[in-house]
Structure formats: C-alpha cells, structure tokens
C-alpha cells in the first residue's frame, strides 16, 4: 500500500502468543513510534509561560528566568503565539496571547518582572490556561510551562484541587509542563500535575541551568509530530482489562480509552496493559482490537491506525511458553522499577528506609536501568546516589522525575 507518510507507527506485542484456554492473564505492549523521516516543518506553538515571582526567587534565580524567557522569545517566530503570566500573591499578565512579532518589546516587558511575596500557583496556572484557551485552534500545539520554586502558599493550596485543575485542562486539550526549581518545591504536586496532563517534569537544581531546561522543553515542542494521541482498545467478550500502566484510562463498556503524551519526531512511547482472559473454547482469537487515534501534523488530519492482538488458546498446557516475549518482559520490569523508585522516595521521606537501604535499592535500580538501555534514567539515579547522604531533597526531586519518565515510557528511537 503506497501509504503517505504518517507521523506515527504502531506495533502491538503480546507477552505470549499461545495462551491457556482455561483462562489466565497476559500483558499487551503497544509501541508507538514517531516517524524520524518526513518534512521538517514544525507545528506552530501556542505557548504560555507561567512564572513564579515569589519572594524566594529574588536575585540570581529571577535573573536567569528572565534570560530563559528571552531565550524562548528568540526561538519562536511570527507563526507562534506566546503569553507570559507571573504569579506571587496575585496574577499578572505580562503579555497576553499574541503572535511573536516585536521581540524587543516582549523582552522589555520580561525585564520589568518584579519580585512579590507568596506563591499562588493555582491562579497562575488557571490564568495561563485561559490565555492559551482563548486562542486555541487545530494544527497548533498548545502548551503551558509552569515554573515554580516553592510550595503553594496563597490562594487554593491543596493537592487535590491543583491536580484536578490540571486534569480539567487536559480534557480541554491543554498540556502542562512543570519546571521545579531549587530545594523547596513540592515534587509530588508537580509530578501529579505533569502526570494528569501528560506534560513533562523537570527538576532544576541550580539557577544557571534554568535557560538550558527551557531550551530543552522548547526543542521537544518543536519536534512534536503527533498530538492529542489516544489509544482505544476494543475488547471482545472474553477479555477484560486488569490494569493500565502509567495512565488514567477512560473505561467505557467494552472500549478502553488511554490518553497518551504528545509524540516527538523519532520518539518511542510504550503503553503496557494487563488483560484478564477468561476461559474459552480453544482456537484463535482476537483478544483486543487496538486503534491509535491522533492529530497528525504531517498529513494535517486526524489519523487512525488499527491493529489486532491475536492469540491462540489451547488446552495443552505444554504448548504454552514458559517465558514471555523479551520486549514485553523488559517493559514490565521498567514499570516495576518506576513503582519501586516511588516507593523508595516515600521510604526516604518517611524515614522508613535507612540511607544504606536506599543506597542498595538505588544501586540495583541503576544497574537494571543500564542493562535495559535506559541510560538517561540511569544517569539520573546516579546523580541521586551522589547526593544521598548530603542532600535528600535532591534525591527525592530527581527520582520523582525518573519514576515519572519511566512510567510514561517515552524513549528515543535507538
């Protein structure tokens, strides 16, 4: 089929291809790959920078943030829409959503950002989302970058409401990326926001790294080839979903919708699902009909890719392979690592785990990540190990990001 180039490809892999007719469980791995070929035209951005200007940002941090914002302005062009919001006790719109035309003027406005007192994260986020929502359209990539260095201290502060806001915005098609700076911010809250909205999580340890991290996020945004990505599993009578790893599925009668993150050129996103397979007469069955639906930035349309996950069921137990597909096995291990990491962070916080136990756990995790080829995550764990003993906040904040990125299952194409 001389198909035109599409932004995504999908592959479905089952843990085993032969299953027990008496019933059992099986993992299904869906691997979504962003094309690495194709044209270089990028999607215009509808971007909002939501900046914390609370008292603690005084001095070097705010200077670097201003520099980072200027950087972002430089990277954008006339097709992009930018808005800039700052928050402390109240929320200021430094720049309402506009096309990036007069870069000098925008930078002048950025330089006028002044330090306030408290941190009103909720309202800042809300106004930021309103800015991008006002000018939203198809074929434009919408993203809100929230930069903060502390716990929310004014306005709505509780975890549930803030995370709920992120989930609501996600339903409207707005993704929030969080950038946590310094030792004070609440990594659980920020990771919660990123998780609910499918955005990225960054931990910025030192002020001089702020511009670099902004650049990294922008670079990712500029290579997005598919947005609004959803995986739809249609399940026949004998199949049920037992668990969906790292995502909030939307369960309907026999269709499970699993939202996915935006996918960049050359990126691989994996989704692991565990199915409960009931007893059935032996034979070949489609255990799930998998459909990937997304906004394709190359064809400019909503595309749909379908695949069938087919298994044979037998009563002859000796025909069922003992070991499962190595790629599926690998993914299961990675998901377990992510859960273990979160547990380790919790253990460290509640001091249920001693430093020696944490160290042992992390060393093992690092070895496994290296073996799995997840070098970036392995490096993060190594950084956490180096900080263990001297600065536990660094450990917690780094590992929270590692656990989240393992959970999302995004990696670069080999």
């Amino acid at each position, binding site marked *: *089929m001389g198909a035109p180039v599409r932004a995504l490809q999908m592959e479905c892999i089952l843990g085993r291809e032969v299953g*027990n*007719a*008496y*019933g*059992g*469980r099986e993992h299904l791995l869906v691997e979504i790959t962003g094309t690495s070929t194709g044209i270089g035209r990028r999607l215009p951005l509808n971007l909002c920078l939501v900046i914390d200007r609370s008292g603690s940002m005084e001095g070097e941090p705010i200077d670097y943030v201003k520099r980072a914002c200027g950087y972002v302005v430089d990277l954008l062009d006339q097709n992009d829409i930018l808005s800039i919001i700052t928050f402390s006790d109240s929320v200021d719109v430094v720049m309402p959503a506009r096309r990036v035309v007069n870069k000098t003027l925008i930078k002048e406005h950025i330089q006028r950002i002044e330090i306030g007192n408290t941190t009103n994260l909720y309202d800042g986020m809300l106004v930021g989302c309103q800015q991008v*929502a006002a000018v939203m*359209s*198809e074929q434009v990539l919408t993203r809100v970058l929230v930069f903060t260095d502390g716990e929310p201290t004014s306005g709505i502060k509780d*975890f*549930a409401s803030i*995370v*709920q806001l992120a989930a609501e915005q996600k*339903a*409207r*098609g707005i993704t929030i990326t969080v950038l946590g700076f310094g030792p004070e911010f609440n990594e*659980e809250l920020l990771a*919660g926001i990123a998780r609910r909205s499918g955005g990225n999580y960054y931990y910025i340890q030192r002020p001089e790294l702020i511009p670099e991290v902004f650049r990294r996020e922008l670079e990712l945004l500029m290579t997005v080839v598919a947005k609004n990505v959803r995986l739809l599993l249609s399940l*026949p*009578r*004998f*199949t049920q979903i037992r*668990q969906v790893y790292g995502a909030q599925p939307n*369960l309907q009668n026999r269709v499970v919708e699993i939202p996915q993150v935006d996918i960049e050129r050359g990126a691989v996103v994996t989704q692991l699902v*565990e199915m409960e397979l009931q*007893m*059935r*007469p*032996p*034979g*070949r*069955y*489609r*255990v*799930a*009909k998998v459909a990937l*639906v997304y906004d394709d930035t190359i064809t400019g*349309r*909503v*595309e*749909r890719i*379908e695949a*069938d996950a*087919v298994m044979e069921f037998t*009563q002859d*137990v*000796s025909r*069922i392979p003992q070991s499962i597909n190595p790629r599926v096995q690998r993914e299961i291990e990675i998901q*377990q690592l992510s*859960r*273990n990491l979160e*547990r*380790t962070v919790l*253990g460290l916080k509640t001091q*249920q*785990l001693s430093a020696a*136990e944490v160290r042992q*756990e992390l060393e*093992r995790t690092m070895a496994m990540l290296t073996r799995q080829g997840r070098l970036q995550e392995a490096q993060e764990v190594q950084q956490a190990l180096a900080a263990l003993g001297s600065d536990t906040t660094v450990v917690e904040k780094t590992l929270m990001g590692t656990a989240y990125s393992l959970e999302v299952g995004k990696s670069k194409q080999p």
Partner: protein
Amino acid sequence: MSTFDPHEDLYALLEVPPDASDDLIREQYRKLVQQYLWDREKFARLNRAFEVLSNPDLRAEYDKQAAIARPRPDAGALASAPPVASPPEAAPTVIGTPAQDLLATQQIADIQRTQMGVRVTCPVCKTETSTIDGYCEECGFALEGAEAVQEIPSLEMPELPALVDALGNVYTLRPGVNTVGRLNADVLLSDPSVSRSHARIIVQNGSVTIEDVGSTNGTFVNGQRLTPQVPVPLSDGAEITFGGTKLTLRMPGAVSVAPPSPEPVLAASAPVTQTLTVTAEEEVTAGAPAEEEEEVVAYWCSDDGTMRVPLSPGMYTIGRRPSNHIVIPDPYVSGNHAILLVEPDLVNIEDVGSTNGTFVDDTKLIPHVAAPLPFGVKVQIGQSTYHLEEAEKPVGQEPVPESTEEEPGEEGGNDAEQP
C-alpha cells in the same frame, strides 16, 4: 444542503466506527459538542460532520466519495466494492462443466464473504456477526479458516484444584503456572507479610506442585518450610502458609476427608476439611511458627461483607492500584487513596491526597493528616463504606512488644527482585 470534504474522516472526528448506527452517532455528537463548546473551530467541524452523517443520503454519498478519496484496507473495501451484481452477470458465460460452475459460485461467495462482510453465526458465542475483518465482533474468535468447523466443542468446565482460605475465599488454580504474591499474582494475597512475588504453583496432568521463589517470609507446607526454588508436590488438604496467610488445597473430586498424615502439627490442628469455621487468628497461632507470628489488632471490613483484611501493627496503603495492601477496584477511589497506621492499641487513618476524599463518620479527612479511627465507625472511600472491627484478644496472650512487630514483607527492597 451541506457539503463535505471526502478527505476528512468524519467518523474519526465523531470517534465512531464507520458502521456506527444513527443512534450512536447522535449520542457521540451530543457528547463531543458538550466537550468542545469552547473550541469554536472544532465545534463547527463537529456540527458539519453530524449534519452529513445524520442524513442518510448525504452519509451514503460521503461514504462513496470518502472511499475513493481515502481508500482504507478494511472500510474502503466495503464501500468501494462494486455492487455484487456484476460477477453474477458474468457467470453465465463461463458455465461449462459443473465443476466450473461450482467454482464460479464459490468465487462469488468468496467475494461476497470478503467484501460484503456477510453475516454469519459465530461458532463459539453463537452471535450473528459480520465477517468484515475476520474476527467475531462479539468474542474475537478468528472466523477465517474456521468455516469448515461447524461446531466448536465448548470447553467443559473442568474441576480445577483450588486454594481455600480461612474466610472461605476460593482461589482457583488453572492448568499451567499460577503465581502467588501480593502484586500481580494469580493468587493475589493482600497480606503485607506476603512477598510481592512469593511462590509458584504448577498444575499439570492433575498433579499440583509448589515452589517458593525466594520470598522473604517463606512458604510452609504442612508446617515445613520449603527450600526456595525447589518444587514440592502437593496433595489434597495440604495446608500452605504464605507469610501470615494460610490456605488449604482442595483437589477436584477428592473426598473431603483429611488424608492420613504423619505431620504432628497437622494432627494437632482441626481436621483438614474446609476451614470455614476456624478464624484466621486461631489458624495462625495453631500453624505458623513463632517467628512468623504477627498479632492481629483489628480487621478492616467493608460494610457489604465482601472484604475483611486482618491488620497487624504497621502501615497499610489503600487505593485502586494493585500495588496497595488493600486494593479497592472502584473508579472513584484514587490510585493511592489513604493509609492505615496500625499500632497495637490504636489505628490511625490518613488520606494521602485522594481526589474524592476519605470520610470518617461523614466528615472529610484533611489530606496528609492522620486521624484516629475508632472501631465500628463508618469510613467512606469511593462508593463503598468500611469499618474497623476489633479482633478479640486471645485470653492470656500478652501484647507482643513493638520490636518484634516489624512488618517483614513491607520494606521496599527486600523482595522485589525475584526471578
């Protein structure tokens, strides 16, 4: 009269399959329009799509044009297939020998079957289904190649071996490998002293073997601790202890009489038939060795009686995710919802930032603040209510000192990495 772009997939826009019924399209349209009220452009597109698809004439016209504009492997074949009239017209010309005739008819039938999605009755689930993509729409059975098979013999419900716990819960063991553990296991035991991956039970040709896979607290069969990674055969009525949970094996067809056993422990305990009447506490004190012993302080019970989890001193997590100690598979329950902090004489409950909150006696808990939970008080989590039931203390038993009450299976690193 509305126009449409045949290149645009209106079905995908409304998120319905191409063969969706009018009702489904209307329902889906209503839903999406609500969702995209704020998005003027999308809203307009949805309206246009609905206008086309809700009008039978327009929809047919769109299907036709779309099939040409965007040929698809499956749906395209259906819509662009020429009316089946043409092959039959050609048929008379090839009539020669009866064999050829038969062949021609066969071909027509093939065309009909593959292109028109003839409806057949699925041999497995007896549902009338379209053969359009080769699988039964209802049960997923592969229809191609199975045509010769008129009747698939239905699988007889075999008598399978099962494990029964003190409360009468039955864990059926399937032929093949069954895993036992606290996480992702076939026999899922929500007991913190059970390792995440604890043991494997292999059922083959009617015989049952068990193998410990390196659990922290060990697996005991009739009081004997198993050597890790060494399979041991099991017989009917065998008592198996995983951490602090004791289960009895019930083989199919076996008469529920205790098999003669040389084990003194077994002889001392109640006859090994169904252990329904024996409470969990007595079980543990009778069978488990002293090092395993954990005092049950209370029981976490659901008001509908489907859940009863013994609590020993330590921390228990509650949530929807299977990684929790107490798993509540309710969509209104957060992945990590709350924790119970169990002390020998007091149980505290703490909401860990759940979305829908935890209510004690109809009062919403403040997240991340532990509150004492008295016995019998109603706790609402998600859609169900729970309460704490006091465990009757066996007479003469001293409360165990705190130092021995460490939760063995709880530590993150101890048992995670079993092969």
